[in-house]
């Protein structure tokens, strides 16, 4: 199986501009077509370790991101997402094409992959123990997730926790971690070697930069893990590191609130979520120091002192 990095820049551009790049991320293959240089750059720098399927293969999703046409492109160029002739989103300024690509990739999964219960949250694994971090934006979930994967935890996903309904296993979908505003410098300071994409200012979520997923996490896309803990993180300046148990009933409701397709799945979603909650301990987690947070996560996974 060849990787994006093996293709070389010219072949990558040719596929993106022509029949599509069949990009594998976790269990999915997306047919990516784009005539936008920022998209080719982003894939080249952040997706080099990802497998590429042969052009004739089967794609789960169609991702076509193209420059807007029409007169306005001369003074206000835009990026448009087109899914087989439909445009589910309004176009964005061309400068935001890269974050748009990442959002579109998330949208495809959360709207269609109903084989999984899809929880909006990060999930990381160490020592066979997966920990789910469901959280609304602003809770510091991505920062914590980025810090953990910079210290040896395996990234399963930063945004979309996929719980396979057949067996309750969490299926990896390791993609770049989306860092916002202040977290970008926090992670730069915490892990100076970390590979970050170019920050994009002015999006609806502020300035965004993506942290490249560790190559090991990407390569292990075929190894699901079992979730053992569900942790609701909350960053609070100056706070002591505290872990407070969340009772099962509350845990169920809070994860349901954060699931994209809980209501779509109906009874099957209820069963799947009930099994997940049975398997896991729930915790509120308040922190201000990343090192302390990581030490505590290591202990949860049965690693270290």
């Amino acid at each position, binding site marked *: 199986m060849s990787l994006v990095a093996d293709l070389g820049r010219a072949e990558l551009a040719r596929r993106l501009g022509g029949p599509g790049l069949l990009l594998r991320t976790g269990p999915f293959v997306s047919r990516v077509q784009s005539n936008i240089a920022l998209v080719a750059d982003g894939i080249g720098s952040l997706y080099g370790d990802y497998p590429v399927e042969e052009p*004739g293969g089967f794609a*789960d999703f169609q991702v076509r991101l193209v420059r807007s046409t029409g007169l306005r492109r001369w003074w206000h160029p835009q990026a448009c997402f087109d899914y087989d002739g439909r445009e589910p989103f309004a176009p964005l300024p061309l400068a935001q094409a890269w974050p748009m690509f990442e959002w579109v990739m998330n949208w495809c999964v959360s709207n*269609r992959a109903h*084989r999984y219960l899809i929880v909006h949250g990060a999930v990381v694994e160490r020592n066979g123990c997966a920990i789910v971090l469901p959280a609304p934006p602003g809770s510091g979930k991505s920062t914590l997730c980025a810090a953990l994967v910079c210290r040896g935890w395996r990234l399963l996903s930063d945004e979309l926790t996929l719980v396979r309904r057949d067996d309750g296993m969490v299926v990896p979908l390791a993609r770049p971690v989306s860092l916002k505003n202040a977290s970008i410098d926090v992670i730069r300071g915490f892990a100076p070697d970390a590979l970050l994409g170019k920050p994009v200012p002015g999006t609806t979520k502020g300035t965004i930069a993506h942290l490249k997923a560790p190559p090991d996490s990407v390569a292990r896309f075929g190894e699901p893990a079992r979730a053992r803990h569900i942790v609701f993180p909350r960053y609070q300046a100056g706070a002591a590191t505290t872990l407070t148990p969340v009772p099962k009933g509350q845990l169920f409701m809070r994860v349901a609130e954060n699931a994209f397709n809980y209501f779509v799945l109906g009874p099957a979603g209820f069963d799947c979520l009930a099994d997940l909650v049975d398997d896991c301990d729930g915790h509120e987690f308040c922190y201000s120091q990343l090192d302390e947070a990581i030490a505590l996560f290591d202990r949860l996974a049965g690693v270290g002192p």
Partner: protein
Amino acid sequence: MMSPASSLLVEVLATPGRVRFLDLPGWERLLRQANSANVGAILVYLLEEYGLLEDVPPKPREHLEAARIVALRHRRLAGYEVGRIRSDLDSLGLPLILLKGAAYAMAGLPSGRGRLFSDIDILVPKDSLDQVERALILHGWASAHHDAYDERYYRTWMHELPPMVHLRRGNAIDVHHAILPETAPVRPDPALLRAAARAIPGEQGAPDIYTLCPQDMFLHSAVHLFFGGEFDQGLRDLFDLHRLALHFDTEPGFWDGLVARADALELTRPLFYALRYITRTFGTPVPAATLAAAAPFGPTGLLLPLMDALFLRALAPLHPECTTRFDGAARFTLYVRGNWLRMPPLLLARHLFHKAFLSPRTAEAA
């Protein structure tokens, strides 16, 4: 003759066994075309009915099953909503007559399996409209953000109340008193439709709920497609007609009396189109006698090849692979024609003028 049968999706809808010969890229094409035509979930039930689902390769199967999940949810919500509407209108002592998608789903018809619809359509007597509207408002339904012009458009000229949405649940209901607008040149008598309505058998778990009788259901589906102006779901709607025809084939007297019934309801022209295009597109086995009886009601002279060209373009799946640059023009022509058939020319000119120039301005000001 030009035919939408050039698309893989149409081939499979007509002959489901065709999927046995698909490779993986073929499956990708089929699923993409099916999604664009909004028949993804219809496809999974169709393949299941023909015993073909077990042989579908795992990846496309996953997508088909995901479409089924969405359809099952849709069916649960629709069933719940119909139950609520029935109890909201309980005190009026009217039979609850469902039309189109909701009717197919609640009656458990093959055309209802996997078919997604955006609102629940019901038919009530015109002189009960006020009562029905009041009862619905009392139970949390409200007119969906229309301006004064829209209100007047619906109440004076149309065959339905302005669409209503439930304030808490967000689902939509269309209350019809007829199946064509007041302003249309043909006026199928709603009393005939209501008198022939049939209760859905109790074992479907939906007591006191009615659908139109089989012939009327077919004719309503035909008039909706061929006299309406919107073809973005054209292929799906044409497939409804094919499925209804296959299903009612065994209903005694369905075919024999169909043309006479269409005549009584002034719907012979849409019946002609329906039979013409389902047989050409899906090879529906319509009895020769029925086709012959409907033949005199078609358009004459040059109009027929023109309508063929327009309809067959507009009925192709809305997928970039299946479209040509004439499709936009065909759809626009049919949009204007659909309105033409619903309103006399002067009124239509006034309506289109208002929609084009005045409505957007009010919307901007708001």
